[in-house]
């Protein structure tokens, strides 16, 4: 368990946060300039916070009240930087071993062969970073952080500098990291789909403050919390792959409700999490007939949150879980949507992007 409490002033930003990161991935989620990187740098010891206390379990890394500030090299945190920061004068193998040289002898170190296999970097070991693609560099950076026998892993938007294809290449490795490594991972992101796929816990930040924290499904399913604005809202459903059909669709089971998605690249029986973007969801009173959309789920309106503009976000509890829908205020009024109203939510199968489907964690 990583505990963070700090205040810090950086230019116009006044940071004042407190949160806990248990085992699994805790995503610091918020738009650019909300102080995410500052927090991670303070945890890493690269920045001295104005006031605060940072601890992993019993081990205090920083406590300004006691004038305690461990230097970065004594914190044993694996930091995956946005730009990789591999050492250009060392081979990939030497980069991976770098952290091992400095780890204490008795540290419970990850096995090199296992990490190399997990990240699929076996063919790159004798190359130099200059000869790697962006995605390969990031995979090596993940391995290097992991092999330094860290107490926790920090990741500052490790996918932000990559294009969509490279992101899709790395995300499964990050999911494996989350599921196979037994330490807290603090992950900075401003991408809704990364959060939906990776987060066990979400800490939503806005202008230097924590606006919500909790389990990913709860925070992402709360219509009041839209750290990136209503445009990026979307709830996460847990589902299991039932069957791949010949017409290119995959049938999923979400707590007993059937979900139809374009062919999902996972084996049958695998547990998944699926992000349903709020702007892709239609709300209907009564069951719609003769509709092209394949996913129609009955549910009860749990909350309606009207925005400042023409939009509103409706939270609907269905059998499959909480779904958010972004509709107009006019439509909400016309349908008399209020907590307790019985509705059907409609989701086109093709609107769910491959990038929004990830392994369950």
């Amino acid at each position, binding site marked *: 368990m990583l505990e963070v409490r700090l205040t810090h002033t950086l230019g116009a930003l006044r940071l004042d946060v407190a949160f806990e990161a248990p085992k699994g991935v805790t995503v610091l989620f918020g738009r650019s300039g909300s102080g995410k990187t500052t927090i991670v740098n303070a945890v890493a010891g690269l920045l001295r916070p104005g006031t605060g206390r940072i601890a992993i379990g019993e081990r205090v890394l920083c406590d300004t009240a006691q004038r305690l500030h461990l*230097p970065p*090299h004594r914190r044993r945190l694996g930091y995956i930087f946005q730009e990789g920061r591999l050492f*250009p004068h060392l081979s990939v193998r030497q980069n991976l071993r*770098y952290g091992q040289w*400095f780890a204490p002898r008795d540290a419970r170190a990850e096995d090199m062969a296992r990490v190399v296999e997990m990240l699929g970097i076996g063919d790159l070991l004798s190359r130099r970073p200059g000869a790697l693609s962006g995605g390969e560099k990031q995979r090596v950076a993940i391995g290097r952080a992991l092999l330094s026998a860290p107490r926790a892993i920090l990741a500052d938007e490790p996918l932000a500098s990559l294009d969509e294809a490279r992101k899709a290449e790395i995300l499964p490795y990050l999911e494996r990291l989350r599921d196979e490594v037994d330490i807290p991972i603090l992950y900075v992101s401003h991408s809704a789909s990364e959060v939906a796929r990776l987060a066990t816990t979400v800490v939503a930040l806005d202008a230097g403050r924590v606006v919500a924290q909790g389990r990913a499904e709860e925070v992402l399913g709360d219509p009041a919390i839209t750290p990136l604005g209503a445009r990026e809202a979307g709830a996460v459903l847990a589902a299991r792959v039932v069957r791949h059909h010949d017409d290119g669709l995959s049938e999923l089971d979400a707590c007993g409700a059937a979900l139809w998605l374009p062919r999902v690249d996972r084996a049958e029986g695998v547990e998944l999490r699926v992000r349903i973007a709020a702007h892709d969801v239609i709300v209907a009173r009564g069951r719609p007939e003769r509709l092209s959309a394949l996913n129609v789920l009955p549910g009860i309106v749990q909350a309606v949150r009207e925005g400042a503009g023409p939009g509103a976000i409706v939270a609907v509890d269905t059998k499959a879980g909480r779904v958010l829908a972004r509709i107009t205020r006019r439509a909400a009024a016309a349908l008399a949507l209020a907590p307790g109203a019985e509705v059907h939510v409609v989701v086109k199968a093709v609107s769910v992007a491959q990038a929004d489907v990830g392994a369950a964690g």
Partner: protein
Amino acid sequence: MQDWLGPEEWKAVALSLRVSLWATVLSLPLGISTAYALARWSFPGKQLLNGLVHLPLVLPPVVTGYLLLLTFGTQGPVGGLLAEAGVVFAFRWTGAALAAAVMAFPLMVRAIRLSIEAVDPRLEEASATLGARPLWVFLTVTLPMALPGIVAGAILAFAKAMGEFGATITFVSNIPGETRTIPSAIYAFLQVPGGEGSAMKLVLISVAVAMGALLISEAVASRVAARVGGR
């Protein structure tokens, strides 16, 4: 070579090589530390240190030589102490090496400082987060990445030391076999009738050494740069 060169000339060449080599090798650790301090630290008196390092570049060499004589001569404050410990600079080849080192120091520090400033501090941060204490960050990241500049600085300093004349002749005079380096020897040969031939041979050697140093410096630096650049 010894057939082509007379014993006088050969002595000058051998002495110059010895003086320059020692001057370069012994000033390298100090040069690297000074360059690192100037590149990465801020401390009171930094500009003063920077000025002091560069002073020999802008002072007349005779002045530098005279200041060395005042300081490191057997009557001088530092020279006197060292003489008691058995280390004598005045009118010895060691003094020639000291003069050459002082004169070459600014060039060495400049080259190394630029290359240290070019090392991305974010890589040093990454090294620290992986558990490297500051000395190890320096030895495993900063130093290897600055290597092209260090090699270039050392070779530049060596070439400068080979050509040092003014400070050397002022500090340690022009004693054959002890302090008569190539430039001093050329000067001496030109003072006597019929010395032009010997002087010309030493001039050719000077040109060859200087040119060779520059070529080696370029070749080594570009090879090291390619390696450090990760290609």
